[in-house]
């Protein structure tokens, strides 16, 4: 770029020199471009959500019709001489009019104008099948009620929440104890035990599943929630790992002060450590909640098809089996199942996005 124009324009603008202004313009363009790219990718990423919602409001016919418009809508009919007749978009004299078809013919058909019935019959030449019906938006909120009732959502929700809350309390408390043991005390074999603990995260559940199943079926626990709840009461490796990382960041001085005051290790843990670890405990509880909400394989196997007590995940898959030909209802049911976790997420997103637990620090 020539030097004199640069100076000339910077004189015009007075304060901001032109090169700087150009840089600013470039930055703004870059920002717009980056944001547009992110928005485009996000739109594609979230597109199925939109599809599910739109489909959940359609009728079965529309949901299964490849030529149906994107949004839920229904062909409009009017009553004419005691009969239901369709309203079609008819091109007449260079304009498209919404007319009701009253007599269908191969070469020509007869129409009436619903707003002006007195004008009588209008004859249009051409094949009426090529005409587009007049549609108006129609949202079948009833799909939600039907899906809700059919899968007996309150019952699924009851069992899912029961499972989530009982195991959340049990697993988080027991994991906190174990994590504290690993983070503060020296004992023989600790490094090996810690590696074994981490190893259980990577161990395929299939390896221990069969003897567990055989055992639980011997004591008649299969078909009940006990095989799913009881093992979680003994601490869960992932929770232990995350909580241990967090406990390591808590300074020891406070515990020493408490022990000088004569508090035993359990009291110290409950009164000094736990209150300080509330962010981490919250995060682990939330992770656990989402884990149970999603848990599918465990309930599938151990509840052994006891349909009266299945959680949402398994109930939804049964629903898919019986209603395979009603995509609108399946989408409505899926939407019901995803809305609660998403609401909880939007209220607690800081816990997930700030990485409190992953990085071991509350920042």
């Amino acid at each position, binding site marked *: 770029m020539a030097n004199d124009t640069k100076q000339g324009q910077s004189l015009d603008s007075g304060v901001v020199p032109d090169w700087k202004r150009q840089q600013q313009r470039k930055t703004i363009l870059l920002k717009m471009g980056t*944001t547009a790219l992110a928005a485009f990718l996000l739109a594609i990423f*979230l597109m199925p959500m939109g*599809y599910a919602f739109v489909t959940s409001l359609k009728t079965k016919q529309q*949901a299964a019709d490849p030529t149906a418009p994107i949004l839920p809508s229904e062909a409009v009919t009017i009553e004419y001489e005691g009969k239901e007749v369709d309203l079609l978009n008819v091109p007449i004299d260079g304009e498209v009019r919404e007319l009701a078809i009253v007599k269908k013919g191969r070469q020509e058909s007869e129409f009436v104008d619903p707003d002006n019935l007195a004008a009588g019959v209008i004859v249009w030449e051409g094949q009426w099948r090529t005409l587009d019906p007049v549609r108006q938006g129609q949202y079948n909120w009833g799909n939600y009620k039907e899906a809700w009732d059919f899968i007996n959502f309150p019952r699924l929700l009851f069992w899912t929440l029961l499972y989530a809350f009982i195991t959340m309390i049990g697993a988080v408390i027991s994991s906190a104890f174990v994590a504290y*043991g690993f983070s503060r005390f020296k004992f023989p074999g600790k490094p090996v035990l810690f590696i074994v603990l981490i190893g*259980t995260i990577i161990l395929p559940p299939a390896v*221990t599943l069969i003897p567990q199943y055989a055992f639980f079926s011997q004591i008649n626990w299969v078909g009940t929630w006990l095989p799913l709840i009881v093992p979680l009461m003994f601490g869960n490796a992932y929770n232990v790992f995350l909580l241990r990382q967090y406990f390591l960041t808590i300074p020891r001085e406070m515990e020493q002060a408490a022990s000088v005051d004569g508090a035993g290790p359990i009291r110290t843990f409950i009164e000094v450590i736990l209150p300080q670890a509330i962010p981490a405990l919250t995060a682990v509880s939330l992770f656990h909640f989402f884990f149970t909400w999603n848990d599918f394989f465990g309930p599938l196997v151990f509840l052994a098809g006891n349909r009266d007590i299945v959680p*949402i995940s398994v109930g939804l898959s049964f629903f898919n089996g019986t209603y395979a030909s009603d995509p609108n209802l399946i989408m409505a049911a899926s939407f019901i199942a995803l809305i609660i976790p998403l609401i909880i997420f939007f209220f607690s997103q800081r816990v997930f996005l700030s990485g409190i637990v992953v990085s071991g620090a509350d920042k």
Partner: protein
Amino acid sequence: MTFTDAIKESRAGPRTRGKKMSTEEKREARIGLAFISPWLIGFSIFYALPMVASFVFSLMEFNLATPEDARFVGLSNWARMLFDDPNTWQGLLVTTRFALISLPIGLIFAFLIAVLLNSLNLWGRNIFRTLFFAPSLVPFVAGALIWSQVLNSQTGWVNRLIELFGIPAVGIDGIRWLDTPGLIPITYTFIGIWGIGNAILINLAGLQGIPTALHEAAQIDGAGYWRRLRTISIPMVTPVIFYNLVLGAVGLLQYFLPPFVLNGTTGYPEGATNFFMIYFYKQAFGFANMGYGAALAWLLFFYGLVVTIILFGTQKYWVYYAAGD
């Protein structure tokens, strides 16, 4: 941050073995063991014993429908599984092929999204972060059902979008995502793509952990954005990518939910969804073959172990640890 770091750290403490423990040390050990006792009990009952039992089961003919007929059969389950049962190998093949296609796509996509979300040129970074993460909390069953509908060849939006680019996709002769065996790995990659939220976050944490001084120094030397991405950002986050790779591989070997929800144990289309875990489920809980199922579970375990060891072995060629260790 990662498990391996934590393990190293836990080993780093002063060694006490061989030395006689003082009373104070004994007391500390007792308290420590008391705190971890819930896990010790749980581990013994729900991991250690079942693992031993599982191995014993794998040497038995044991059907839960007729437990009184259970008998010891030596290695015949193992022999049948490895030499006489084509389903075993099909399961491993389908699963491995899927992992080889799906894992790189998922890792690259997660990394690219993280780079985008880390860009200073992005307006509303927090909103984008929230919205890219949110789908990973959609229940997996709901996600699988939604994606299977959106990939429907006739009514799904994916094919409609492709048609916007002038490629015929909708309809019987169009792209039949769920019905064409060759497309299954790609289709199920789409179905699982909502699950990458955690990988995005971990990548993002890795990118944010790169010292800004590195980028500044490179910028002064005249390195442009892409050059810095290639020579600084990517090497610096390879540990994070490695972590995602190992967890992703272990997870994908146990791939079960989407194919099971969509096709049960039918393997539709033409066996393309006969993942190993589906076959395991069919044997163990469909036919109640506890002995044969246990052998299959052990095979999956060994296979996963080999894959993990190989992945750890490749570390020295491409994973860059800034601490030099």
